[in-house]
Structure formats: structure tokens, C-alpha cells
């Protein structure tokens, strides 16, 4: 047969376990303990309510631009749920709930959004990278971490996040290709929230799914209902196990939706219809997971309410602490920290000059 269709051993699967009407596929239900399920729920609620609070702070001018995560809680929380603390997380910038779940403090998020570099400091015991604004640039870093882990003969994995828009960048391609070639333990999690600012998924690429892009790299690809935390968890767990077992990388496409604006500087009314948003609200991942937990008998209305109250208090405390902290972080000379291991002489001079100017300004202020 000189003209024939080429067969690929790899296939791309779609996974959904808990559908938007709350129907559960019991055959696929992951075996997760109650406390983990409740913890995930709690962080979903925290992520959602923190968004609202940050939005208020932003509108009041108390913090700067930030990217809300509402609607995507299941996608990123379900993904990190199977990770151990030694596994690595490399975020984009729309995984706040997952960062918090893995130990980032609410204050550090607030500080970062308020324009303090201190907000991006990462404790030594958290294997996380700072948020990465330049789209898709963090993907090769994850490959490097994965390679290093393998070299180090550890069995940890790396999970890296990005959006649907990121799949268009050259760095996405180079990273996934390297991941295939070096068979690194990296899980690539695409939060396909249907929009890259104003560009809909359909104009981002003509490929039917994003998951199938894995075929170009000889790695595993899977698409999941990203608003179904059980499906996301299942896909992530399989991918993580796959990586740990030395079988290489996986690309997971989480089909989800950004319910709010791209960032607080954005006005989504310019480019998308309210009806679309409404349709997706009906698929809200938190409501859906809440139903499941009720069905399991792990949650009731009273418990839900108290989680909300607790979470709000936690947020309020963090805002208070962060704002107190900010008052102490005023020294502009901090900008000279962490540039080099040792500041070269000419920059030391620039630093002293700035110090002198600040003192003079202070004097002028004091006297004038």
C-alpha cells in the first residue's frame, strides 16, 4: 500500500467524572480521603473569595493590577492535589489557589500585587517557582528542573502551568519537544480558559484540541473537563505517576473558563458576550464539587457557611498583616538587593548615590 494512513500508538483521551449536572461516573471516581477532599474544597472557596477581596483592594487603589482565577479553581487545585511537597510547581500567574494550597501565604500574594518584590520570595521548603508573566517562558524551566531531578536520581516530578494562549508561543513548542526527547518527569498543565485576553481559543490555533499537540512531541496528551476537580485530579495523578515511573512527560488540557476579567486592567465586555459567561457559570467547579461532597455526606449547608466565614477571616487577617508589613517595606534601597550575589563597584556607587539623595530629600522634607 504505497499510499496509506500512518497509525500512531498514542491516542488522546478525554476524561470527565463529575459532570456539570453533578452526575458521577462511579467507575472512575478517585479514591481520595475525606480530609483531602475537604481541603481541596476549602482552597477552592478561599481562591474564589480571595479574588473578590483582591478586586476590592484593587478598585480602592490599595493594590495594583492582578489576574483573577475565578472559575479555574478545579483546574489548578485538582492538578496539584497529587503532588508531594518535594515535587515542584512552576506557575504561570493564574494558579493562585494552587500556590496557596502548596503553602504560599496570602500575604505574599497581596504584597506581590501591591508591587513589592518581597511578595515573590519563596521559603526554602517550598519547591515552587515565582509566578511568570512572560507567556510560556516558564515551560523550559520546568524541563530543566525535570532533567535535574532525573540527574539527581530523585523520583519527584515537576508540574508547570500555562494558558491556552501560551500554546502558541515558541517556548511551549521547544519545551514540550525537549521534554519528549529527554523523557523528563514533567506534567504540563494547560488551563484552557477559552480566552487569551480578547483572543478566543478558536483563533488561537486551528487544532481541534490542545491536548493533541502532544502528538507532535511523542508525549502523552489528555483533555479533561477542567471544571471537574475529580477528573483533573485523576489525569494529574496518572501523569505524575507516569513521570515518577520514568515514562516521561504528559500534556493535560483542562477545559475551563475565566469567569472574570483577564486582569483588573481588562474589560471583557469589549470582546465576549455575557451569555457565554452565564453558560459557564452553570458549570461552576465549586458548586459542582460542593454537590459531590454533600452527596458523599462530607459537607452540608452549615459546614459550607462556616468554611466561608473561616476563609474570610483568614483573608482579612492576611490583608491586615500585609498592609502592616507594607508600611515597613518602604526602603527604596531594597531594589539593589538580589541583583547579583555581590554588587559590582559601579552599582554600589549608584546605590550610595541614591542613599545620599534620599537622605537629602528627607532633610529637605524635615526642614521644609
Amino acid at each position, binding site marked *: 500500500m504505497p499510499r496509506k494512513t500512518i497509525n500512531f500508538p498514542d491516542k488522546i483521551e478525554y476524561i470527565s467524572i463529575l459532570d456539570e449536572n453533578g452526575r458521577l461516573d462511579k467507575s472512575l471516581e478517585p479514591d481520595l480521603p475525606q480530609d483531602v477532599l475537604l481541603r481541596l474544597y476549602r482552597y477552592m472557596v478561599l481562591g474564589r473569595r480571595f479574588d473578590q477581596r483582591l478586586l476590592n483592594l484593587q478598585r480602592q487603589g490599595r493594590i495594583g493590577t492582578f489576574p483573577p482565577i475565578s472559575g479555574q479553581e478545579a483546574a489548578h487545585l485538582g492538578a496539584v492535589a497529587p503532588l508531594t511537597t518535594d515535587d515542584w510547581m512552576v506557575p504561570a500567574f493564574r494558579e493562585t489557589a494552587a500556590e496557596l494550597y502548596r503553602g504560599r501565604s496570602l500575604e505574599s500574594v497581596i504584597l506581590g500585587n*501591591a508591587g513589592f518584590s518581597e511578595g515573590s520570595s519563596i521559603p526554602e521548603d517550598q519547591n515552587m517557582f515565582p509566578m511568570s508573566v*512572560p507567556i510560556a517562558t516558564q515551560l523550559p524551566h520546568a524541563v530543566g528542573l525535570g532533567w535535574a531531578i532525573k540527574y539527581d536520581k530523585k523520583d519527584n516530578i515537576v508540574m508547570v502551568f500555562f494558558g491556552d494562549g501560551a500554546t502558541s508561543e515558541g517556548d511551549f513548542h521547544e519545551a514540550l519537544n525537549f521534554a519528549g526527547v529527554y523523557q523528563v518527569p514533567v506534567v504540563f498543565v494547560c488551563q484552557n480558559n477559552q480566552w487569551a485576553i480578547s483572543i478566543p481559543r478558536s*483563533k488561537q490555533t486551528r487544532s481541534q484540541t490542545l491536548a493533541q499537540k502532544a502528538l507532535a512531541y511523542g508525549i502523552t496528551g489528555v483533555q479533561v473537563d477542567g471544571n471537574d476537580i475529580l477528573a483533573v485530579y485523576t489525569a494529574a495523578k496518572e501523569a505524575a505517576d507516569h513521570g515518577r515511573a520514568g515514562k516521561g512527560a504528559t500534556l493535560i488540557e483542562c477545559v475551563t473558563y475565566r469567569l472574570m476579567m483577564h486582569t483588573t486592567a481588562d474589560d471583557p465586555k*469589549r470582546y465576549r458576550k455575557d451569555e457565554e459567561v452565564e453558560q459557564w457559570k452553570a458549570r461552576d467547579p465549586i458548586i459542582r464539587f460542593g454537590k459531590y461532597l454533600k452527596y458523599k455526606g462530607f459537607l452540608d449547608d452549615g459546614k459550607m457557611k462556616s468554611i466561608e466565614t473561616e476563609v474570610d477571616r483568614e483573608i482579612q487577617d492576611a490583608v491586615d498583616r500585609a498592609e502592616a508589613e507594607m508600611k515597613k517595606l518602604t526602603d*527604596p534601597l531594597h531594589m539593589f538587593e538580589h541583583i547579583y550575589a555581590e554588587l559590582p563597584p559601579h552599582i554600589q556607587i*549608584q546605590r550610595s548615590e*541614591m542613599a545620599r539623595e534620599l537622605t537629602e530629600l528627607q532633610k529637605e522634607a524635615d526642614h521644609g
Partner: protein
Amino acid sequence: MAKMTMVQALNLAFKQTMAKDPRVIVMGEDVGLDGGVFRVTDGLIQEFGEDRVLDTPLAEAGIVGMAVGMAAYGLRPVCEMQFSGFSYQAFHQVENHAARLRLRSQGRFHVPMVLRAPYGGGVRALEHHSESREVFWAHIPGLKMVIPSGPRVARALLVSAIQDPDPVIFYEPKALYRAFREDVPDEEEVFPIGKSQIVREGTDLTMISYGAMMRPTLEAAEALKEKKGVQAEVIDLLTLSPLDDALFTASVKKTGRAMVVHEAPMSYGPGAEIISRLVEKSFYYLEAPIERVTGADITIPLFSRESSYLPNAARIIRKAEKLLSAP
């Protein structure tokens, strides 16, 4: 004649040029329905259609590389890089091709494209959204590099850039987008690329700057006059490459003292070339070392501290006083 912000003035340049010349194509991330994240391309897709205003996938090298092909064919693409900090993804397309295709094809093709990008600090933006790296482009042979300082000249320079037969990098100081309004004439206006402007005449020292730093520089010049009766001549470069060194050397021959102000880091920054041209062409007129007021050689800090990083009138005045007090 209408009072406009820089955003509106740039938008006007697009509307008029696109209406006249069907070869002009606007392209970039979110330049269509969204009108660009700063709204510079607002309304263009409604007026000119999807064929003239391309919302692209999220890929800067793809945008610029595609524009090179379009320009070679005979179109006049104007690419938007959403922020200058994300233009480096396209750096190789500019260095290897946009700047060289004329040479590489011995004149068969040329690349009349414009690469626009908002740059610089001062708007409380996110990480990677505030730095100034104009030198990267100014150093590349085959390119021109332009930085406007206000609505009227921005509009006129953008029209010139679109008409220019060679690739023009057009950095827009984002701090100025909505900072003030200026009268902008209704009829099309151009401003020649490669020309600088004296925006304030003076005899005692020459202050050279461009972009968003023109405002603190002019503020400093006024303060110097009020405080000390010093008459500073202030030059707005407008084009960084090719440099209009005739203008600023003539000024320094008159004043004998010069300083350069920019927000880019000092080392290997734009000021260095200005100083070198001055040394080359007006050395014997210099009465004091040329001063630089610039960003420090560090990454510009996040917005809570950026105002301390950016040159301001107080710093400029202090350096000017040093310059004037030199023997």
C-alpha cells in the same frame, strides 16, 4: 485641531493612514476587538475590517516574522508588541531579517514595517512591563528607532514611520499615553525621522532627553530658571537612530555643558552614545564632564519602589547644579 491624549493621537494617525493606504495592516495581540490593551488601535477593526486589523495568536516571533513576509510582498504592516518586555521573543526576527532583508536580497525586497511597543515605567504595571531597553534596537544597523514625547509629535512620527521604506522601531512611553493632552491638527502631519528638536532654548547648559523623561527634564529646567536664573537648553531627541547629532552638538558648542537623562540603565545605555558624539564633535567646547541622570544598572523594581528608580526633577536639578558648578 483637537485636544488629544497620545493614545488618541496615535489612533488618529492609524485612522488617517489606513484610510488612504490599503497597504497598511495593523497586527498584534488584542489589537482588534479589544483595541489593544492601551486602546491605541481602538475602533480600527470596526472601521477597516478583519483584513486590515489582525488579531494574532500569542507569538511575537510569528507576528514579526509574518510582517517581514508581508512587507517584502509590498504591504506596510504595523506590528504591536503588547509590551516592550515581550518583544525579545521576536528579537531574532528583527536582527536577522527585518533589519537585513534589503541587504540580503540586494535591494529586491525591503521591509517597510513598524514595530510599536509601549515601554518604560511609571504606570504601576506588573513585572516585565516597565523596563527601557531602547539601546537593543538603536544598536542594530538597518533599523531606525523613534521615541515620541507627546501626542502631537507621536502622531506625526507614527505617520512618518509607516511611510518610511525601512523598518522602524517605535517605542511609546506608556507613562505618557494619557498623561496630558495636546492640540493635534486635523489634517495629516508628519515629522521627519532622524530629526531632534530644541524644546526650550537656553545658553547655560544643554539637557538632552526623550520620551517620558522629557517632562521631569523640562520641569527641572524651569526650576533651575526660577531658583537660580539658569537658562537650560532642552533637546528632545525623538529619533534615537539615526541620531541627529548636528543639533545637540551645536547646542553644546553654545552652552559648553551637557547632560543626558533617560530611564534606561546607565551602562551601555543611550546616554553613552550621546556623550561619545559630543566628545567627538564638541570636545573643545566642553567646560565640564557630561553628566548622566539615568536608571541604575539594576532591574527596575516593582511599582511600589519604581518612583525612586526613575529619574525625577530633583535628581536632574542636583546633577545640573553639579554640572554648572564645575570650574
